[in-house]
Structure formats: C-alpha cells, structure tokens
C-alpha cells in the first residue's frame, strides 16, 4: 500500500515537473508565443467563420427545400384519385394537398373578374418533401407517372443555393487546409528552435535515464496549448460572426440554427489541438532523438 502511495506521489511530482517544464518552454519562447497565437487564432477564426457559413447555408437549403412546393398537374383524361394514390406511395412526402380544378377555378373567379368560359384548369396536387435532397428524385418519379401532365418547382433557386454552398465548402476547406499547414509549419519551427535551445538539458536528461515522455511531453503540451488558446480566441470571433449571420437570417425571416455555434466551437478546439499538437509532434519526431 505504501509502495503504491509512494509511486503515485512520484508520478504526481513528475507530472508537476512536466507542466513546469512546459511553462519554462513558454517563458523561453517569449514574444513568439503571442505571434503564434495571433496567427493561429486568425486562421482558426477564418476557418470557424467559413464553417459557420457553410453550416448555416446547409440548414437554409434544407429548410427552404422542405418548404418548396412541387405542383403536379393532372391530365384531364386521368383518374385524379388514382394518380393521388400513386403519388402517396412515394417516400419522403411531408405534405400533400389535392386541389380540384373546380375549386381552383372558383377561387380564381373570386379573385379575378374572369369571363364565363369553360374551366381550363387541371386538377392539381401540391406537395412538400421532408428535405430538399429528395426533390429531384421525386420529380423524376412523378414525371414517369402516366396521369401527370406536367409539374412545377423552383429548380433554379435550389440549384443556385446548392452551388453556393458547395463552392463555399470547397473554397473554405481549401483555404483552411492551406492556413492549417502554414500554422503547423510555424509551430514546427518554433518547437524546433526550442529543442535546439534546450539541447543541453535534453542531453543531460537522456543520459541520466529520465523517461522519454518526460522529455517529449513539454514540447507537445506547448504546441497543444497554442492550439487551445488560439481556438478559444477564435471562438470569440466566431460568436460575433454567427450572431451577425443570425441577424441577417432573422431580417430575411429565415430560420436560424441554434446549434451552429456549439458545433463550430467544438470543431475549432479539436482543430486547434490537431494543428498545435500536430505541429509540435512533427518537430519532436523529427528533431528530438531520445
């Protein structure tokens, strides 16, 4: 029991020393710490803002898609009830309303002063899908139904929004990837310099039998710390960006996504850890022989 306590106390002391060494590493890095955090926070802010836009646009497309109405015009000679039953069998239908040609004509006559002519309107089915991604496949299936004369839906609007989202995703991810590589390069070089700077200590520790992780961990922690601090700064910037986006959405009476900020915050912290810790890990692997 006392052995266990003793060994635990030793491990705790070693952990404390590792954090102390990390602190000393940060102290040695001096002004460069601030430069790294500023660069990394800027990069993560850009990434976070782009990510927020992509998520919100995705939600917007989905919301718009589920509101989009497909109008199916039934052939005069077709049995409308039969066509309606056929359509009902299709998947992902959120809402379906049948407007008979008599009802449509009566409403039209109420709104417009029309001459007394024969009702030219067809029976119409208005339908909404659960998501915009099912619209195109459903449209194709509807076209193949024999009783369907023609159909209408706002194809161009959906196509444009989809293209913008896709474009933003590709540009955003490419820019973020390049910037992440740049950050990793900066951290890698900083840790390399620090390893050079601590060459003597490292050699003493190695030769006197100090564990490899004791030597490596302070560098990795320093890199990870840059990532986390930068991510937290970037989270602040993203908070304001999302607030602004939400205001724009509210102005246009569009639905906002409550969870966007949380998703972006989590991804930013993970990205920060990956880029910061990753940059340090590359330097440790390349320049620190233990």
């Amino acid at each position, binding site marked *: 029991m006392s052995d266990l306590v003793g060994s635990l*106390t*030793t*491990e*705790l*002391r*070693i952990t404390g*020393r590792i954090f102390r060494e990390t602190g000393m590493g940060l102290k040695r890095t001096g002004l460069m710490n601030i430069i790294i955090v500023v660069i990394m926070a800027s990069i993560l802010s850009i990434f976070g803002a782009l990510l927020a836009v992509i998520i919100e646009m995705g939600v917007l497309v989905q919301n718009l898609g589920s509101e989009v109405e497909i109008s199916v015009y039934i052939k005069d000679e077709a049995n409308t009830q039969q066509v309606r039953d056929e359509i009902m069998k299709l998947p992902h239908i959120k809402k379906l309303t049948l407007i008979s040609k008599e009802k449509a004509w009566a409403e039209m006559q109420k709104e417009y002063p029309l001459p007394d002519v024969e009702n030219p309107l067809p029976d119409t089915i208005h339908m909404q899908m659960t998501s915009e991604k099912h619209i195109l496949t459903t449209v194709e299936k509807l076209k193949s139904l024999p009783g369907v004369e023609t159909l209408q839906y706002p194809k161009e609007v959906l196509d444009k929004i989809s293209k913008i989202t896709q474009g933003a995703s590709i540009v955003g991810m490419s820019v973020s990837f390049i910037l992440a590589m740049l950050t990793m390069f900066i951290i890698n070089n900083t840790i390399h310099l620090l390893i050079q700077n601590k060459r*003597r*200590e490292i*050699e*003493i*520790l*190695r*030769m*006197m*039998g*100090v*564990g*490899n992780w*004791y030597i490596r961990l302070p560098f990795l922690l320093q890199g990870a710390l840059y990532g986390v601090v930068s991510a937290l700064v970037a989270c602040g910037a993203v908070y304001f960006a999302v607030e602004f986006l939400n205001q724009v959405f509210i102005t246009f009476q569009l639905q906002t996504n409550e969870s966007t900020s949380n998703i972006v915050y989590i991804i930013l912290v993970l990205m920060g850890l990956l880029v910061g810790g990753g940059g340090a890990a590359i330097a440790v692997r390349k320049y620190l022989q*233990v």
Partner: protein
Amino acid sequence: MIQFVDTSMRYDNCVALHNVDFEIEMGEFVFFVGPSGAGKSTIMKLIYREEKATSGKVLVGRIDVAKLSGHEVPKLRRRMGIVFQDFKLLPGQSAFDNVAYVLRALGVSPTEIRKRVLGALKVVGLIEKVDATPEELSGGEQQRVGIARAIVNGPAIVIADEPTGNLDPDSSLEIMNLLQQINRRGTTVLVSTHNHQIVNQMRKRVIALKSGEIVSDIPDGAYFINE
C-alpha cells in the same frame, strides 16, 4: 559484469570498432586509451546504449543492451552515471540545482533530493559552493559538479568520456583522484582519456585501442610506461 563479445561498430563506411572482446568485473577501474578515432568513445556509447553494435554483443549485468526497448534504455542509464568532457552544466543555475536537476525530473521528493545532493557535493568536496553557478566555478570545480550529478543517483557504473579533456594538469589529477575515491566505494569506473601521465600515475587497468581494435589490455597501467 560488462562484456563485449566480438563487438563491431560501423558508421557508414568507417569502422569504429572491429571484433572487440573484453570483460570488466563490477567494481573495477578501467582506462580506455588510444588516439582520436581509436574507438574509445564508441565503447562508452555502446555501454550506455547511445549506439547499437553493428554485430556482436554488449552485455551489462547479463543484459544484452542492444535488445532493450526504447523505454527500457532510461532504466539502464539510471544504473549509470555519465561524466562529460564539457561538463554540460546548466548556466545560471547553482551547483545544487545542477545536481538536483535530474532527480527532480525523476520525481524524487524534495527532502530526499536535498539529502542526496548535499551528500554528492560533499563527496566531490564542493559542499561550501552549493550556491555557486558554473560561471563562478573553475573548470575543475565545474567537472566536480558534473561528477556529483553523475553519482547522485547511486549508480553502479560511472562512465567518464575524456573527463579531463578541458582541464589543466592539476585539476585533471584531482578529478582522477576523485573518480578513484568513488571507485573505492564499489562503483565501477570507466574512463576514456588521452592523458598519458595520469594513466601512468594511477596504475589501473588500461585497455588500449587503435583503429577500432584492442592492441593491449594491461591490468596495472604499464601501457604508457613501456610505450
């Protein structure tokens, strides 16, 4: 026991050691001598597993050091104390802190660190200079701090690679006497050196190397006397 069995070591196209065989009993004091490039430092590095032999075996206490995994090497080195030619002290830090540096990294308690560091500094005769930084110490004193750091963990083997290389003759003799004193306490001491005079004076076992091969292994240090 330290044992080299038909050990060879190559660096790219250069042969550093060629089929070397010798045994060192625990508690011995052994000098490794020879010109630069003879293979002295390579032998030291093979013992503390800084290098792996290209062929043959290096056994330390029956353990084939080449077979040790990455996390077992530090355990091997904790049984050894290494003294460097250039002292490798941390500038601006007191003699106490320099000696305590590794113990802190090993998680030793502050009370134990104090006891062991003061004990080691007493052995090397620097108890009066615990607070002095390397900049305030002479070369000989700096090497004493280096030796205190090497023995503070109670190693079974002390390895000193050219410990007097940067010292004047008087300081060199003091350092060798100190290593002899440590050896008398039962610690195996291995010293590589160019210093003929000291080797002759000490009258210890001398393994002489030339171009990576053992040219003589003399128990009483007569090598340079007869040279």
